[in-house]
């Protein structure tokens, strides 16, 4: 269950890969939609931690264009419900995340991302 909220926080950490290492590109993904309880208070608390551009780009690559390119200044209920869906109800069960800089592949299997590096790749 790699939801987009988690994807939004993962970057490539291979040795020497320190720029253009985020967001990781989703590849060959199997998606699942899982309903989650709507909690506007959590969303508001989480907003300062979010990278908006990365979220919108990733959602659009997955065919979801419900979020605006620019982060709105006011968070009304309609917006928060769309954000809730994209962040917390779309999950990647199988596939991979690929670093846009060094092309390192992080596989996702049974909803769990494998972020380990080989010994020679550790910074």
């Amino acid at each position, binding site marked *: *269950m*790699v*939801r987009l*909220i*988690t994807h*939004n*926080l*993962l*970057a*490539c*950490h291979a040795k020497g890969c320190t720029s253009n*290492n*985020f967001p990781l590109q989703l590849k060959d993904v199997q998606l699942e939609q899982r309903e*989650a*309880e709507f*909690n506007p*208070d*959590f969303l508001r*608390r*989480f907003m*300062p*931690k979010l*990278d908006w551009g990365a979220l919108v780009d990733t959602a659009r690559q997955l065919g979801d264009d419900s979020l605006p390119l620019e982060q709105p200044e006011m968070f009304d209920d309609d917006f928060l419900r769309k954000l809730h869906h994209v962040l917390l109800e779309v999950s990647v069960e199988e596939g991979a995340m690929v670093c846009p800089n060094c092309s390192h592949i*992080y596989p996702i299997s*049974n*909803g*769990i*991302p*494998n*972020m*380990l*590096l080989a*010994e020679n790749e*550790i910074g």
Partner: protein
Amino acid sequence: MIPTPDLSHLSRKDYDDVYEPAEDTFVLLDALEQEAPKLKSLNPAVCLEIGSGSGCVSAFLSRVLEPLVVLHLCTDINPIAARCTVSTGLQNKVSLNAMISDLASPLSFRLHGKVDVILFNPPYVPTWSEEADEAQERHGIAGSWAGGLSGMEVTDRFLKTVDQLLSPQGVFYLVAIKENNVPELRSGMQSRFQLQSEIVLQRRAGREHLYTIKFFR
């Protein structure tokens, strides 16, 4: 009193590969329960557990914080542990976002200054250095306890990154034993990172003298 999370879905076979909650786990759970009012008052959004193993501690933290809902990120170098963490989340109706990872490596870029609560019950048992290295490389159950020299080799690697991860009001709870040299550990964090600390709980359990230490700015 907050009940221990339901772990009835885990079997003996799971505990061949994943650390089964024991006295050291309970020293952390009891400390978190004691800290409940303070933890809630932080109004946290992101909680990170390193070496989540069975997932028991993060599942418990979610109860401690109720009715507040937070994002639980859980890392473990052991793939079977990551799977157990997810299933413990499902069993206890909390979403535990597990990943197979060495400490917080893939999260540190994005979570710079953004983690509100960090939990770590590390491999703290003093062993030969080689034994700890090998345990980490094998990604198995020995990695949950073999701590290398003074039981601090894995912990030390993480301590270097704590200050970068913590949000301005963030707190970090660490389990330690007497052999880890708790006074030196605390003064080191103060002098290297200006992180203050206090012992939230200490308890003798068999041969081990266990501590839960809290670090904060």
